[in-house]
Structures are given as structure tokens and as C-alpha cells.
């Protein structure tokens, strides 16, 4: 737990790349392997999008050790940006994605800067409040959708030089969702080994050591928070195209609780933890659903009970898995 985890495969970059490519290829054909039905496609697309959403909060919670309760704000910024810019100005997917990244960085930078000098729980409190306020604004401001939201978002269009990719159906969106997920995984893996990633871990594990090395924990917190926002934002961006609708329901507590649960369920600081966590939780909700209210009880209980009884997550029950 206390040491910075080393990826064993990092000594053999070619092998690692080969494994990664193989997994990506299997991933690409996974919906086909699961029957190729539109349910398989849409479920896997949803899992990929939600996993990316979770990775945003993951780098704050796992590596920085702080709790952001405002990532639904970035999730909604992504959705609202995609919806507004594509419906009102006819912009393509690249432009809406860039705008999402920019807006998320601005919002996170603002919240992070304001809470720079406050204690850790005030950071959580302010991020929580920011999401509530975001909901209020989205609900009341008719220019960006108001309480009805924006209906009829056209298919995702990504011009690629000569050809234009168009994601009209769930089958078409799967490669985009998978690519976004893989890029996110690469990004997180790089972050774990980056200067910022190791500094964040050090601040969390041994603040005294970090201070003696001249690391300012507040600046690290700001940097990690700003970095995390566009990840969740891009997930929201794709979610808007998948659902063809955005509304104030993107601020639902559900998404926040899902993000946190997916991270802690498998265990913090495990690269593929949030992905597996998301898959398990979405599978429960889609395949073994007990109805909306019971699903809430299940999700909330899992979150609370895991942290109370197995703080290291399910992976903590199988110590040999952590060596991977």
C-alpha cells in the first residue's frame, strides 16, 4: 500500500504495447462475441463511457487522496457543451470535444484556485456545492436547455481527413467509446508514472517527506484536480451523443455515487480497478436490476460497506492480484 506501485511490464515496453494492442483488438470485437445484439453494443458502450467518467474522479481519489464531490459538474459540462454546440451551431465532434476540455479546465481551475488555501473537507464541500449550483443553473437557464434539456442531438460526426466518421447507432459509437476508454487508460498509466502522479502520491502517503522535498501540496492538488476534470467531461460529451439528449438529470447524485463506488469497489490505485468496478455495477443495474429505489440502496450500501469493511476494496481480499 505504502510504496508507489511499479508496473512490472514497464521494463518491457514492446511486450506491454503488444498486450495492450491485443486487448484493444479483443475489446473491439467484444460486443460481437457477446452476441452482437444492440443491447450488447449499448451496454458495453455505456460501460466504456461510465468508466471514463469514473477515471476522472479516480485520479483525485486514488492518487491525491482527496474527495471531489463535484465531478458531476464536469460530466454535465461535457454533455451540455456537446448538445449546445452541435444543435445550435452545427459543430462537429472534434470542436465540441475541444470546447469540453477547455470549459472543464476553466471550471476546475476556478474551483481549485478558490479552495487552494482551505482544508481538505472544505474542498469536498465546495465541489459538492458547485454541482448543486450547476444543477440550479442548468435547470433555470433556458438558453442552455432549461428544465427540459436539449432533445434531438444529431449523430456524432468526426471528420477524419478524407472520410467522416458518423456515429448514428450504438454499433457505430462503440469504437469511439472504446477508443476514448483506451486513451484514458494510457493517460492514467502515464500519469501514475509522471512527476505529478508520484508527487501526488507522496503528498497523500507522506506529507512530511513531500514538504521536505519542496513540494507544495496545494499546487499538486490544483494540478491533479484540473487534470481530472476533462476526463470526466469527455465521458459526458460522448454520453450526450449516445443518448441524443441532455438535461439537468446529468447532475443526479447517482453519477457521483457511481463514480466513487466504481473506484473503491475494486480498490484505489489499481489501473483497471474503475473499469472493472463500473462493469460490475452497470451489469447489476442492467441485468439484475431490482428497481430504481432498490438499486440506490444497493449502490449506496456497496459504497459505504466496502469502505467500512474492506478499505482496500475487493482486490484487498486477493493480495496476489495487487502484484500484477
Amino acid at each position: 500500500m505504502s510504496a508507489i506501485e511499479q508496473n512490472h511490464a514497464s521494463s518491457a515496453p514492446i511486450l506491454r504495447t503488444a498486450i495492450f494492442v491485443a486487448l484493444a483488438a479483443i475489446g473491439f470485437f467484444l460486443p460481437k462475441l457477446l452476441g452482437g445484439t444492440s443491447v450488447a453494443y449499448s451496454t458495453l458502450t455505456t460501460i466504456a463511457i461510465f468508466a471514463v467518467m469514473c477515471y476522472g474522479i479516480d485520479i483525485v481519489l486514488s492518487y491525491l487522496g482527496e474527495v471531489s464531490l463535484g465531478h458531476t459538474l464536469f460530466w454535465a459540462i461535457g454533455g451540455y457543451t456537446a448538445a449546445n454546440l452541435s444543435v445550435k451551431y452545427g459543430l462537429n465532434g472534434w470542436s465540441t470535444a475541444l470546447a469540453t476540455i477547455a470549459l472543464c479546465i476553466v471550471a476546475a481551475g476556478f474551483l481549485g484556485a478558490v479552495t487552494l488555501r482551505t482544508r481538505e473537507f472544505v474542498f469536498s464541500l465546495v465541489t459538492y456545492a458547485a454541482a448543486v449550483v450547476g444543477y440550479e443553473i442548468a435547470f433555470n437557464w433556458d438558453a442552455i436547455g432549461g428544465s427540459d434539456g436539449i432533445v434531438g442531438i444529431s449523430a456524432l460526426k468526426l471528420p477524419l481527413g478524407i472520410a467522416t466518421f458518423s456515429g448514428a447507432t450504438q454499433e457505430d459509437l462503440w469504437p469511439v467509446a472504446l477508443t476514448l476508454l483506451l486513451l484514458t487508460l494510457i493517460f492514467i498509466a502515464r500519469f501514475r508514472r509522471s512527476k505529478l502522479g508520484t508527487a501526488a502520491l507522496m503528498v497523500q502517503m507522506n506529507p512530511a517527506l513531500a514538504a521536505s522535498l519542496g513540494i507544495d501540496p496545494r499546487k499538486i492538488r490544483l494540478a491533479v484536480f484540473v487534470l481530472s476534470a476533462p476526463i470526466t467531461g469527455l465521458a459526458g460529451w460522448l454520453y450526450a451523443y449516445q443518448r441524443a439528449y441532455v438535461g439537468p438529470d446529468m447532475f443526479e447524485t447517482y453519477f457521483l455515487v457511481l463514480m466513487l463506488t466504481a473506484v473503491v469497489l475494486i480498490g484505489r490505485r489499481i489501473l483497471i480497478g474503475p473499469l472493472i468496478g463500473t462493469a460490475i455495477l452497470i451489469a447489476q443495474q442492467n441485468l439484475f436490476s431490482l428497481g430504481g429505489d432498490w438499486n440506490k440502496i444497493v449502490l449506496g450500501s456497496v459504497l459505504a460497506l466496502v469502505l467500512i469493511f474492506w478499505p482496500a476494496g475487493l482486490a484487498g481480499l486477493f493480495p496476489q492480484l495487487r502484484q500484477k
Partner: protein
Amino acid sequence: MNIAQQIVNGLVLGSGYACVALGWTILLGVARLVNFAHGQLYMLGAFVTWYAMTKAGLPYPLAILASIIALGILGALMQTAMMRLVMTQNLTSLMIVTLGFGYVLQGGSALIFGGNPQTLPGTLARAKVDLGSLWFTWQDVLVFVATLLLYGAVWLFTQKTRFGSVIRAVAEDPKLAELFGINAKLVYLFVFIFECAAVALGAALVAPRSPILTSMGFNEVIMTFVVVVLGGIGSISGALVAGLGLGLFIAFFGAFVAQAYTTAAAFALLLILLVIRPAGLATK
């Protein structure tokens, strides 16, 4: 005259904010704990009161008592489950665990009480008092007086009694306090039960003003956050002043700027304060 009416409205709103925030203030101020299920506990307190009055036919004071007892028991259960995290002062996990509990309460309440908005029956909330061109309800008077009395009592208890200093000793260092023969677990349990009972009382008093919904907890709690931070993290008198001040601000903002964006305005106020005085207004 509108100004005078807005001042009355502000005091009415503000005493409600302060009343609901009391439990959090104590929890944070004397035990250094946080509870992100506070909003859902507020919702539950309101619904238990509603259920006791409409389904069990209890009179209002008994319904309040039932709500306090029910949430006190719930608080004891929650705190018992979280005890290990509390004793190790694991604030990060506590924040998430209480958020999880809150979500369970929301789902559970929707199952038990249904998804429809309800209104607490109350004669006081509809008994208007007219003073010239000013008006308020007897419920407002009740909330205002009860809030002042509660804050006074809690202030006396924590500052002037031996038990108050015991709680503060535990907050300072639970392990050390145990060496001096203080049962820190019991103290934490007591404080958390108080937080839940206080929010039940606050909900029973404040909720008759507006319709209640099982999904309202997440949004309702934001004013408590603002009060606690404005008041200077755990300062009892600070929270009372902050609550009343916030109420006045919201009343005037709602009347003269935009009713729809009052939460956003409160949040903006919080952010400005955090930049100027990161530790809150009432810091020494």
C-alpha cells in the same frame, strides 16, 4: 415597506438555515467530523414527522419527538458502523461513507414514503400574523424562538459544562483522551446521535413551510454548508450569525435580483469568503 418585509423574510429563512445547520456545526466544531448524509437526514426527519402526523395521527409535538427518536436511533447505527473510521480520523473515507449512507436513505425513503411530494399538515404554518403591512406565520415565530433557545442551550452546554470540555478533548486527540480515562467512542456516539436528533428537530420545524420530496436532501443541504463555513467551521455563535445573515442575503437577493438563482448566489458568497478568509469569518 417591502424592505421591512424582506428583513422579516430574511430572519425567517435564516433562523431555518441556522436551525438545520446546528447538528453539523456541533459535529464539525467539537468532534471534527463531517456528515454528507445530512441532507438526506433532513429529508427523513421531515418524512418521519409527516408520517407520524398523517398516518399515525399523532399531534405535532409528539410527531416531532417520534422523528427525533427515530433519527437518533439511526444515528447510533450509522456511527457504530463507522466507528473504526472515526477513531482513526479517516476523514476521506468518512465523507464517502456518509455520502453512501445518504444515498441508501434516499432510496429507502422513496420505497417507504413514495415518490410524490407531500406537505406536512400544520395549523401553525398557515396561521398568519399581520403587523401592519408585515406578515409572517406562527410557524416562523416558533422556528425563530426555538433556534435561539437551541443555540443558547448548546453554547452553554459545550462551553460551560464539564461534558463540553470532554467532547473537545476527544476532538483534539481521541487516543490521548482515552489515556485519561475518557471513553472516546461513547463521546463520538453521543455527538453523532445529537447531530441526527438535531437535524430531525430542525426538519420537523422548518419543513412545514414547503412541500417535501424524498429526493430533496442533496440540494437542501447546501445552505447548511454555507452556514457552517461562513460561521467559521464549528463556531456555534458564528453559525447562528451566519445563518441569519445568509437568510437576509437570500431574502433580498430573491426579492430584488432573481428567485431562481438564490442557491447560486449563496455559493458565490461562499466562494468570495473562501478567497478572502479561507478559515471562515469567525476565526480568531
